[in-house]
């Protein structure tokens, strides 16, 4: 019973804090995915542009941020960001150390990583659009922005859903590493709870179960979204795509 009390919602229980931490994990991952979507779209556009310098730049970005450990990137953003903030503070006349907010640093770091993966997802999705549709859009006189809005964007989003689901799962698990910056997300809160009650096994199991709930729930949501986005696609065409 003592165990139940520890993870329950009473005054000595960690239940509420852990649920709040799970919410924080969701928030930081969602922010990271949004940052990554912007970065990923830019990088994908650079890679598809066909200009040698832009393509090289895009390749360097995806190679570096997919090839270097996530933890190292989080250190780079957190410590590097803090010293940048400190020097800005100095320029504005504030003496002393200024820390970068850990939520911002974490979301930015995981966002930069997911941007590298999302760039590949978007690029693949763009290449999956049939050439004929792009030519048809040109033929009926759509200009570039109209073609982008009406033909490219809806299809890229549809083709990208499975890949984005994978990136989301990856980012959800990467978000556990943000705990090193001290942000009270699920990993960090389990760690604090485990340390202060000396019940390491219990709290890491509970934290792990909460992560499993998050990953399996989001798996369902992405599957549903995929079905919904494809409801207008004939099944025969799906086989080809």
């Amino acid at each position, binding site marked *: 019973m003592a165990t139940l009390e520890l993870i329950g919602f009473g005054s000595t229980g960690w239940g509420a804090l852990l649920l709040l931490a799970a919410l924080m994990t969701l928030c930081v991952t969602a922010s990271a995915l949004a940052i990554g979507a912007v970065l990923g779209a830019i990088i994908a556009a650079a890679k598809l542009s066909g200009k040698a310098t832009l393509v090289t730049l895009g390749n360097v970005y995806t190679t570096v941020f997919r090839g270097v450990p996530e933890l190292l990137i989080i250190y780079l953003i957190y*410590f*590097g960001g803090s*010293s940048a903030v400190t020097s800005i503070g100095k320029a504005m006349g504030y003496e002393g150390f200024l820390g970068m907010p850990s939520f911002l640093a974490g979301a930015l770091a995981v966002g930069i990583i997911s941007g590298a993966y999302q760039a590949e997802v978007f690029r693949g999705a763009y290449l999956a659009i049939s050439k004929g549709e792009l030519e048809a859009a040109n033929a009926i006189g759509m200009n570039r922005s109209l073609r982008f809005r009406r033909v490219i964007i809806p299809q890229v989003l549809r083709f990208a859903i499975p890949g984005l689901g994978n990136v989301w799962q990856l980012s959800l698990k990467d978000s556990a590493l943000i705990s090193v910056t001290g942000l009270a997300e699920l*990993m960090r809160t389990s760690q604090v709870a485990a340390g202060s009650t000396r019940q390491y096994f219990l709290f*890491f*199991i509970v934290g792990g179960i909460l*992560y499993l709930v998050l990953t399996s729930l989001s798996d369902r949501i992405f599957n549903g979204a995929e079905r919904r986005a494809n409801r207008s696609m004939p099944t025969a065409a799906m086989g080809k795509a």
Partner: protein
Amino acid sequence: MDFAFLLQTMTTLLKAVPMTLALFSLSVFVGGLLALLIVWMRVGGNPVLSAFAKGYIFVFRGSPLLIQMFLVFYGLGQFGFIRYSFLWPFLREPFVCAVLSLALCTAGYSAEIFRGGIRAVSPREIEAARSIGMSGALLVRRILAPIAFRHALPAYSTEIVLMMKSTALASLVTVWEVTGVAQRLISQTYRTMEVFLCAAIIYLVLNFIILQAMSLLEYSLSRHRRAVPPALKA
């Protein structure tokens, strides 16, 4: 750019490379064996074993590696029967815990990759082997395993690169590999960018070597798919 500092950082970090490589190679080896066991359970046909394998894969792919590592490192020592067993001298070591959790985690991912490889073997080849009277073990050894391995290789090389990156987490359970040493240098010198640059180069070179080795392996395993050189055709 302060080249003296970069050089000094690089030498310090390079000294930690053997630790990273030891973590990597041991956990890939152990994890690979474990993955074979799990994929055997998963496709073997026994419903109990198959359900266990499914559960294993779900748990280890669905939760972050860090929490698994902490569970092994901090969680196991909580139990008296582990602390007083013959295993404790090993499980007390952070290095062993890191390898164990890395191997357990990669086994879940690799098992799914191997299963995909097995499913890609065409049923006609299996039927052909059966019809000429191959037994189960011979069929696995001569037909199923080589073809499945070849199919699984591209995805498996991605998984191995992910493993190289995952070894960085061992620094959080006090194993001094490249990322851990880099973090220590950053907090000592506050020169984030330079230290990051050196560590990133080390990881990128290691990953590049792994990918090259894997594509060499893939090339040598797919000799039958390459066009016959014109000199031999005549």
